[in-house]
C-alpha cells in the first residue's frame, strides 16, 4: 500500500467520523439541519437559470415596484425586474466569492505559515508583514482596489483574501511550532528523516483539521463582506445580481419595498448561519481546543 492511499484512507476515516459522530450525542440536529439548508441554497442558486421565471436582468418599465403576484412571487424592483429571479440567481456570485476567498486564503496561508513555522530565519520577517496586512481593514482595502481597478470579482476576492491570509498564517504557524516539539517529530529526526518528509508528512497534516474549520469561517465572512462592499457601492459590477447588489439597490426604496433588503438578506443570513454552524460542528469534532477567530 502506498503512502498516498494511506493518507487518503485516514482522510476518509476523518470524514466518516465527521458524519457518523463518535459518541453520538455530541452533535445535535443543528448541524444536520444547517447542512440541509446550505445544500438547498447551493443547489437552488446553481440551478437558478433552469427554473427562474424571468431573466434577472430584464427591465420592464411598465411593471416597476409591483407587489407579490402570481407572475412575480416576490414582486418587482424599481426597474421592473423580477425580484425572485434576481434573488435566486444572486446566490451564484456570492457563493463563488465565499468559496474562492476561502480556498485562496487557506492555500496561501498554508504555504506561508509552513515556511514561517519551520524556518526560523524567515519567521520574523514574515510575521511582521502579516501583522501589517492584518491591520488593514478588508472593507477599506476593497474600496481602494475598486476605486483603482474598477468593480470586478477579482478585486473583491483579493481584497477579502489579503486580511484573511495573516490569520491563516498565524494558525498554521502556531500548529507547526507546537507540533515540532512533539516527541514523535523528534523521533523522526532521530530516524534520519529528511526535512521535507518531516515538514510535509509529520507536521503539515496537523494543520488540516484547524484549516477546514478556519476555511468555513472565512467562506462565511467573505460572503458577508461581499454584501457590505456591494452595499457601499464598492463590490462587483452592479450589472451582476448578487445578494449584496440587490440590497444596495433596495436601500433607497427601503420604506416602500422592504422585500428588496429582506429576501436577499434572509437568504444571505441563512447561508452564512449554516456555514458558521457547520464550522462550529467541524471544530467540535476535529479540533475541540481551537477557538473561533482567535488572533
Amino acid at each position: 500500500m502506498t503512502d498516498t492511499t494511506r493518507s487518503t484512507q485516514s482522510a476518509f476515516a476523518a470524514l466518516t467520523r465527521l458524519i457518523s459522530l463518535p459518541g453520538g450525542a455530541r452533535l445535535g440536529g443543528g448541524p444536520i439541519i444547517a447542512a440541509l439548508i446550505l445544500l438547498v441554497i447551493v443547489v437552488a442558486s446553481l440551478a437558478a437559470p433552469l427554473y427562474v421565471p424571468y431573466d434577472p436582468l430584464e427591465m420592464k418599465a411598465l411593471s416597476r415596484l409591483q407587489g407579490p403576484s402570481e407572475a412575480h412571487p416576490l414582486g418587482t424592483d424599481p426597474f421592473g425586474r423580477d425580484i425572485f429571479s434576481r434573488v435566486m440567481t444572486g446566490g451564484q456570485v456570492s457563493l463563488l466569492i465565499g468559496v474562492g476567498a476561502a480556498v485562496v486564503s487557506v492555500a496561501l496561508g498554508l504555504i506561508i505559515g509552513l515556511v514561517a513555522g519551520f524556518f526560523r530565519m524567515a519567521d520574523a520577517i514574515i510575521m511582521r508583514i502579516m501583522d501589517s496586512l492584518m491591520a488593514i481593514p478588508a472593507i477599506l482595502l476593497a474600496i481602494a482596489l475598486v476605486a483603482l481597478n474598477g468593480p470586478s470579482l477579482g478585486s473583491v476576492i483579493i481584497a477579502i483574501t489579503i486580511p484573511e491570509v495573516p490569520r491563516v498564517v498565524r494558525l498554521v504557524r502556531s500548529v507547526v511550532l507546537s507540533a515540532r516539539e512533539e516527541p514523535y517529530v523528534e523521533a523522526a529526526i532521530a530516524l534520519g528523516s529528511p526535512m521535507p518528509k518531516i515538514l510535509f508528512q509529520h507536521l503539515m497534516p496537523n494543520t488540516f483539521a484547524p484549516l477546514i474549520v478556519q476555511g468555513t469561517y472565512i467562506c462565511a465572512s467573505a460572503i458577508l463582506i461581499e454584501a457590505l462592499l456591494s452595499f457601499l457601492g464598492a463590490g462587483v459590477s452592479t450589472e451582476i445580481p448578487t445578494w449584496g447588489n440587490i440590497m444596495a439597490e433596495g436601500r433607497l426604496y427601503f420604506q416602500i419595498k422592504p422585500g428588496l433588503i429582506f429576501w436577499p438578506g434572509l437568504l444571505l443570513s441563512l447561508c452564512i448561519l449554516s456555514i458558521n454552524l457547520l464550522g462550529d460542528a467541524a471544530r467540535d469534532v476535529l479540533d475541540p481546543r481551537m477557538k473561533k477567530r482567535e488572533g
Partner: protein
Amino acid sequence: MLGYILKRVLATIPVMAIVAIFVFLLLRLTPGDPAAILAGDAATPDQLERIRDRLGLNDPLYIQFFTWVGQLLQGDLGTSLISNTSVSSMIGNRIGPTINIALMTILISVALAVPMGVIAAWRHRTWVDFLVMSFSVLGFSVPVFVIGYILIQIFAIELRWVPVQGYVSPGEDFGDFFVRAIMPSLTLATIYIALIARMTRASMLEVLGEDYIRTARAKGVRENVVLFRHALRNAAVPILTIIGTGFALLISGVVVTESVFNIPGIGRLTVDAILARDYPVIQAMILLTAGIYVVVNLLVDISYSFFDPRIRY
C-alpha cells in the same frame, strides 16, 4: 516594564512602515495610468495633468515615496482631488461623531458580552448557553446594515421611540445625542458582542476545567467568587486579544453603519470618497484605521500584565 513598553512601541514602527509602503504601492502598481482611472472617462488632458501633479506621479518612484513619507511625518495626509481641501482637516471635522459612536459601542459590547460569555460557560450545555451561542452565531451571520434596517423598521418606524436617522453632538444636547446614537451603536455592537461573548465563553470553559478552580471549590468558595475572582481574571488575556483584533470588524462596521443612519462621521466621508474616486482620502483612511488598529492592539498587549502576573517583562 517601561523597557518592555518602549520595545513594543518601537515594534509598531516597522508594522506601520510596511502598511505605508503597501498603500503607496497600491496606487503606483495599478495597471494603466492611475490618473486616468481616478479622473474617469470624461477627463480632459488638463485634468489628468492636475491629478498627476497633485499625486506627484511625474517624479521617479523613490522620490515620490520619500516626498510622500516626509509629508506624512509632518501630519500632511494630502489634498482631496474633489474639494481641494486638506485631507487632515476633512478627517478632523468628521472624526468626532465616529469616536462618540465607537466609544458607546465598545462600552455596550463589553458590558453585555462578558457577563453573557461568563454565564454561558458557567451554565454550559443549558438553555442559557444555547441562547447566548445562538445570538452569537446570528450576530456573525446577519450583515450589519440588515440589522440596522430591522432596528429602524421596529423602533423608529413602527414604535416611533427614536428618530429614523441623523446625529446631534453630545456637547450640544446629550439627551438628543443618546437617543440618536443608541440605534447605530446597538447595530454596530451586534457583531462585536457576538465575538466577545463567544471568546469569553470559550476562554472561561477552558479555565473552569483547570485544577485551581477545583482547588477553589475544594476550599468552599462561593460560586460567584469562583467565577469572577478566580476564573475571569485567568480567562482575560484571550478576551482582551479578541477585543483588540475585533477592532478591525468595528472599523468596517462604522463605514456601513454611518451610511445607514446618515451620521456625518469619517465612515460617510469614506463612502463619499469611493463614489467620487477621491483617492487621497481613501489612502488616508487606510493609514488612519491601520494606525488605530495598531495602537489599540499595542494597548491590549500592554494591559495583559495587569491581569496576569506571569507576564512581567
